[in-house]
């Protein structure tokens, strides 16, 4: 089960340099400056953590930490 803390850890592990601890789970990724390559990195990390593969077409559903939690925890 993914938690806000584990997603933030994945963000740090994936090289995202934003102050991850201060992020709100509802905030849109783009609002704190994450670009497409940051998200590629993040999803590589999340897929490795969960053993799940996220199809390309599902990526657009996940625009915040809360969205990511909902997606993984509802789907798996």
């Amino acid at each position, binding site marked *: 089960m993914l938690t806000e803390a584990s997603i933030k850890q994945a963000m740090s*592990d*994936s*090289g995202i340099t934003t102050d991850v601890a201060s992020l709100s789970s509802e905030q849109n990724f783009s609002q704190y400056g994450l*670009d*497409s*390559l*940051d998200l*590629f*990195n993040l*999803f*590589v990390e999340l*897929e490795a953590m969960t053993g799940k593969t996220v199809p*390309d077409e599902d*990526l657009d559903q996940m625009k915040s930490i809360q969205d990511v939690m909902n997606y993984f925890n509802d789907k798996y």
Partner: protein
Amino acid sequence: MIGIKSIASYVPDNGIDNFAQAKKFEETVAFVKDKLGAKFLPRLEKGEETSDIAAKAVNSLLAKSSLHKDDISVLIVVTQNPDGAGLPHCSALVHKKLDLPASVAAFDVSLGCSGYVYGLSILEGILQSLGGKNGVLVTADPYSKIVSQADRATSMLFGDAATATWLGENPKWLIKDISFGTDGNGADFLKVENAQLVMNGRQVFNFASQKVAPAIKSLLLKNQISEDAVDAYVIHQGSLAIVDAIARKFKNNENKFIRALENTGNTVSSSIPLILEEIIIGDQCLRLVLSGFGVGFSWATCILERNVDYVD
């Protein structure tokens, strides 16, 4: 013993300001500097063909080394963007432009970003079967021929360049070991359709970040070499973000991964030899890891070691 004796290159002066290009796509300066890594993308000069830049790289090699045209027995050109439709093969055109002897074996290798490492192994094998002699491995894959300037996924990444590597006896560098890999399931993620390059950036990124580090670690383990005992990791410069993602898998050695695409971008099979020429070949490094990876998907990894018996 066959190995690398010298490397030269040709990079066109003509090119594109990547910051200006990024502005067109509403990308930030930070994205260009910190993620793509390339502020300038060289482009073929007007009228220049793949065989032209290949010949220029070989001429540069001939000018800087003691290699003579008459001493060349094998010429390999790594390209997937040859002159015309690829018939005749690009290496034949380079052979003609350089006026090389009729005894030369010349052929193309159709590989992308893994092509330099593959090419080293192919040329080493042929030269060994010939009992020595000299061969030249050329990389020349100008993606500007297939990149649409309107495509945000590819137009900010690729630069044109060519390199020429001399392999022969009494080399400065020896190939200690090499490994290869292919995953044809990735074929659809980077391909040419209707004469234009089409890339699924996420899938290419996933492939590189998942396959390359294990391939390097496996080859080092097989050779009982620790990650710390490598002086520099010279991997394909797909983008700065790709190099960083792979480097992160090597805790304590991240800074040994060379980042050198600021003035060239991703030059496909030329990215590794450009680094070897400019940064590594003359310094005090004793052991290098090379890794090329890309279209196919295809990847190749090798360990280079300085030849302690080299006679200058």
